[in-house]
């Protein structure tokens, strides 16, 4: 007896869109053909049911990426801007980036899924010995878009990754980062902030695999979710037997701005070495009513006081962005999203 999976229109459209594709896109096509889009029955997708979210997606769409040319020739101090745009319908695209040893590069990815899009974007990165990548991802989608961004990042000895991801959500927005961390002077900083209005979902999924000794990883993700919004955080640190003296710290904190806000968090440590410093913290809370009253007593209107409190709460991970102009730009972006929320 053989079982044939019946594809929903979005799955068929994605398979069609990737006809003749190679590499990562071919893999995506074959996985989709064989298993369909992941549903909440998959452990890794239990709070982000992609098949259900893509239910209304039909037809083949286009994923356009501008700025790719700059990836081919990198010089120390370069700042690259990639604008990734998914039109209505199913689409996928990928790119590769090698940060040469000893150079420092800033990459800004601006992701935008349009109404009715099922966009897939994948980046494969290698940071060579002593190289540094400052990666900023701004996920700014239409409320009815479905968008999956993912990255495989491999560090060599002495390499540095500083990543900051901000997301205002979509019908479903997921950002996955998989990091191979060799230790031996390499270090990883992961920052993230999400701010979600009603009807919006954002999923931050990260896996950091420590394979060699002495690796340092710091992660701070903060979120604020309005009633009817859903924030998901899945963080995993794996520390191999060989990765002694790893120092890895994961923190996720989020504010529930209304009674019907949903926040799902799964911080995980998988440790096989015995001489390590690893910790994870996860805290959900509500806005401090006493602080709110204090601010109003000084004359700030309630909406303004709320916005100021949320902004200061979410600003902490953005302070990890090294470039001051970029940091300010992200804070302005955040303020604008907050304005729309309150």
């Amino acid at each position: 007896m053989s079982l044939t999976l019946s594809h929903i229109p979005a799955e068929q459209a994605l398979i069609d869109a990737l006809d003749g594709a190679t590499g990562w896109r071919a893999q995506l096509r074959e996985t989709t053909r064989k298993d369909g889009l992941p549903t909440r029955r998959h452990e890794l997708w239990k709070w982000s049911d992609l098949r259900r979210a893509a239910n209304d997606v039909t037809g083949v769409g286009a994923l356009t990426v501008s700025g790719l040319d700059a990836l081919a020739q990198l010089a120390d101090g370069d700042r690259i801007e990639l604008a990734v745009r998914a039109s209505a319908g199913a689409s996928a695209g990928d790119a590769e980036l090698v940060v040469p040893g000893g150079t420092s590069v800033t990459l800004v990815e601006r992701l935008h899924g349009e109404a009715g899009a099922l966009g897939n974007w994948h980046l494969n990165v290698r940071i060579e010995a002593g190289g540094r990548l400052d990666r900023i991802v701004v996920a700014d989608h239409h409320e009815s878009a479905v968008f999956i961004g993912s990255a495989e990042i491999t560090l060599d000895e002495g390499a540095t990754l500083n990543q900051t991801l901000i997301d205002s959500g979509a019908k479903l927005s997921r950002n996955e980062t998989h990091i191979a961390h060799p230790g031996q002077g390499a270090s990883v900083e992961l920052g993230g902030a999400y701010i979600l209005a009603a009807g919006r979902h954002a999923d931050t999924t990260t896996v950091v695999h420590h394979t060699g000794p002495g690796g340092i990883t710091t992660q701070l993700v903060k979120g604020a979710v309005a009633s009817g919004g859903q924030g998901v955080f899945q963080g995993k640190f794996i520390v191999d037997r060989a990765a002694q003296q790893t120092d890895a710290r994961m923190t996720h904190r989020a504010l529930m701005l209304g009674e019907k806000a949903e926040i799902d968090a799964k911080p995980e440590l998988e440790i096989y070495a015995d001489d390590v410093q690893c910790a994870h913290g996860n805290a959900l809370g509500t806005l401090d009513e006493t602080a709110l009253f204090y601010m109003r007593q000084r004359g700030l209107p309630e909406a303004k006081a709320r916005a100021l409190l949320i902004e200061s709460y979410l600003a902490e991970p953005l302070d990890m962005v090294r470039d001051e102009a970029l940091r300010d730009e992200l804070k302005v972006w955040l303020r604008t999203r907050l304005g729309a929320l309150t």
Partner: protein
Amino acid sequence: MLKIQDLRCKVETQDGEEKPILKGLSLDVPAGEVHAIMGPNGSGKSTLSYVLTGRDGYEVTGGSMEFAGEDLAALAPEERAALGLYLSFQYPVEIPGVPTITFLKEALNAQRATRGEEEVSAPQFMKLIREKAKQLNVSMDMLKRPVNVGFSGGEKKRMEILQALVLEPKFLILDETDSGLDIDALKIVSDGVNALRAPDRGMLVITHYQRLLDHITPDVVHVMADGRIVKSGGPELARELEAEGYDKYLGEAA
């Protein structure tokens, strides 16, 4: 200026029960006067300060409170602030991530906007705050730190008075401003408060001890017990309370 008539208020306790705290309190503070309210713990002094400023969970069940001709109960906390009502908190609140200087500028301009006045420009504001900070021995470095975060009890109280100097309210309520202050800080804070005394400004000084009133001499002293004013008199009443305690008023209230 502030007219409170037969005010009654209840508060929801943590177990969800409603408890009457103010039980017919009447008080009249004319412009230019400083009134002190003294009373034992639990008499309702802090509740009065929260009811006047509009904190959630403090429900007016009877009577009236009028400030500058407006019915306070009908106004949101920020509207009362814009009218010129200022509360110096017994426990000033920490606001991580918001620099004091930013907070104060936002607050001042929000109040001015509500009153239909022009915004204060950044240079004007810096000049203003420098001058006031000096008066209270507060460093600019402290002002750059987040509101009240990591400040000692005395520093927090100094900041409360500094905020009042900048916002220039018409009426100040000082809730246990002397608690947590050593002698030197008490002097600095009282000097700040005295500098705010003006013919068009009223003050209500809530305190448990007479100590603060040695520095800020009140025009009238009220004794509060069990949610009511049970006696009023001149500054000598504060000294009498210090010597004899509150016992006899507790008897009267019950």
